[in-house]
């Protein structure tokens, strides 16, 4: 960890008297793509803005490339930031938007031109140089913002929910675009999102945050398969979570844990030791989703559509196989 490119030491941020981020420690190595994942208000954007320098931590240190930048102004940090709203300059053409950072660096006109045009080409926007931002579609504006952020070759790129304003198809497209660029530039990136799918698809490492603290830090595989606690489990799609205390009355537990969680498709329906009633069934095409009322409370299950179907009100047997369950620790107090 000592070779980390970016380090946050016990960083705390306050808005007035409320604490947004508390004693956060974080390390990102060179070339790494890290996703900050969490619900709104968890402190992920605050953390990112602190790294950018737009917010000043009330305590702690931020170190980039071995230098303490805690007191360095944002425009001196050489960190790129791509905004959720794109934040394009409405009065400047696409070219001038991209060239803005280069002009501030007082590069010769010829270099500015080459680099800006190259950056625009690399995001697939060659030929739009003379347009104004408002003449572009949302996806195109997004690409301009990306080009503008990378053209100055920052040593670290921060992305603040960059895809949340796009429709589903464009989002997929941009996702692969960002991955490609990250690999090409070998640029460390921190990507803030509340969408677990995005985080899983993009990041080398995911940091799940809640209430200003880190809940879990791990590879996408680990986060997806082995959430540490109930909060992380729910956030990555474990919809049925039962405490060990509750389960112990009905089953032999495989090991010590505070609770166990199952994804809907890991719940077996039609056969099994437990009984319940179908309260709702939704046909989703490939699968059918059931809401089963049981002695454990409501259970969410998802089974293949070609399996025998159960109508609302029917009694049904089900199983919660421990082989597929994730053992969970108790939540930290919020």
């Amino acid at each position, binding site marked *: 960890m000592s070779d980390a490119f970016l380090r946050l030491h016990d960083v705390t941020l306050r808005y007035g008297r409320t604490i947004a981020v508390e004693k956060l420690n974080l390390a990102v190595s060179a070339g790494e793509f890290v996703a900050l994942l969490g619900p709104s208000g968890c402190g992920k954007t605050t953390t990112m803005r602190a790294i950018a320098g737009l917010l000043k931590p009330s305590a702690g240190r931020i170190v980039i490339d071995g230098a303490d930048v805690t007191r360095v102004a944002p425009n001196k940090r050489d960190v790129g930031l791509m905004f959720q709203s794109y934040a394009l300059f409405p009065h400047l053409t696409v070219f001038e938007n991209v060239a803005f950072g280069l002009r501030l660096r007082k590069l*010769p*006109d*010829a270099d500015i*031109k080459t680099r800006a045009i190259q950056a625009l080409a690399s995001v697939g926007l060659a030929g739009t140089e003379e347009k104004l931002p408002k003449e572009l579609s949302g996806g195109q504006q997004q690409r301009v913002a990306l080009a503008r952020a990378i053209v100055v070759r920052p040593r670290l790129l921060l992305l603040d929910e960059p895809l949340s304003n796009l429709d589903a198809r464009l989002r997929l497209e941009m996702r692969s675009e960002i991955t490609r660029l990250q690999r090409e530039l070998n640029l460390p990136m921190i990507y803030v999102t509340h969408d677990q799918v995005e985080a899983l698809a993009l990041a080398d490492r995911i940091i799940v945050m809640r209430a200003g603290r880190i809940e879990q830090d791990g590879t996408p595989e680990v986060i997806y398969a082995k959430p540490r606690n109930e909060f992380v489990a729910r956030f990555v799609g474990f919809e049925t979570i039962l405490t060990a205390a509750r389960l112990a009355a009905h089953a032999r537990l495989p090991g010590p844990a505070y609770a166990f969680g199952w994804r809907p498709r890991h719940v077996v329906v039609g056969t099994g030791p437990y009984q319940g009633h179908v309260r709702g069934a939704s046909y989703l095409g490939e699968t059918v989703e059931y809401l089963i009322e049981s002695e454990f409370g409501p259970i969410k299950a998802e089974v293949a559509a070609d399996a025998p179907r159960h109508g609302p009100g029917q009694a049904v047997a089900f199983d919660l196989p421990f082989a597929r369950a994730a053992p969970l620790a108790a939540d930290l107090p919020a």
Partner: protein
Amino acid sequence: MQHARLIATLRRIGILAIAVSGVAYLAYVFFHEPGDDQGGDRLVISVYGVSQDSFRKNLYAPFEAECGCTLVVETGNSAERLSKLAARKNNPEVDLAVFSDFDALAALRRGLLDPIDVSRLSNYNKLYEFARDPIGGHMAVGYTVYATGIVYRTDKVAISSWRDLWSPSLKDRLVLPTLTSSGGPLLLQMLERAAGGSDPTFAGALAQVAANKRSVVTFFERSANLVQLFQQGEAWAAVTGRYNLPLLLRLNMPIAWASPSEGDAGGRNVLVLIKGSRRRALALRFLDKWLSTEVQTAMALDLVDSPANREATLPPNVASLLTYGPEMIERMNFIAPAVVLDHRAAWTKAWNETIAR
């Protein structure tokens, strides 16, 4: 590309230069005191706003040519200018002012005036008696006199006494000066006299006005919207200074100056020197010029001010429009400035209680 940037920068500098010099020019216009560039002295005078064109032609321009100085003129009615003078008492802007005799006395009582060294005035001995020492102590010199009387539409009413103002045919057509204007006390004085009284509290006169206040279109503060009132048909009769008569006659309406049996009230305007003025010699020189026979005659010929200088001679057609000649001046009832000042507060109180409301 570098070239284009240079041109853009130059253009920006050019636009900036034009803007800055434009603003600088406006700042110059605004802060520039008239006369600064001529190198000579400036003399600041505070006068009534009426007939400034004539004054410029007959008095200001010739004086500026003689003295090589610049005249800065502040205009306004007597009371307004007096209150500004009082406000700036410790740092006076004005060197010489013109007031009605009682406003001049008010200024004197507020410590705003310096005495006039009349021995240095070459025209002093040509003045009528009324103009020589109107408020005492040689604190002022009169430059004009005006009868305050009644103008009326001869096609609508007949006027032979101040009491005729209350005739029913003038209902809603009568315009009177308000108490706070120079004409106010003069009006009350004549009404009091017409009623046979001589009580300086003017109780009888105030009662007359109060009883007939519904007849009055408006009590004017500035004499000259009188012209408009006649022209618009709002007024058939008005009490005013004779200096308004020429303006009114230009309306081509059957308008005449009444000769009421009680005579007319006499009003005087005077010149005063402001205490603390730094240009005393120049002010005296200007004052003397104003009193000179040529200026007094010229102003009279323009039908602006009746002369206070006995040597100003006027042709009959002009004389008939002004307050001119010993007999006419004899006929006028002057009111002592001190009487006005001593009673004005009481008059105002009574006026507000019974008339203004």
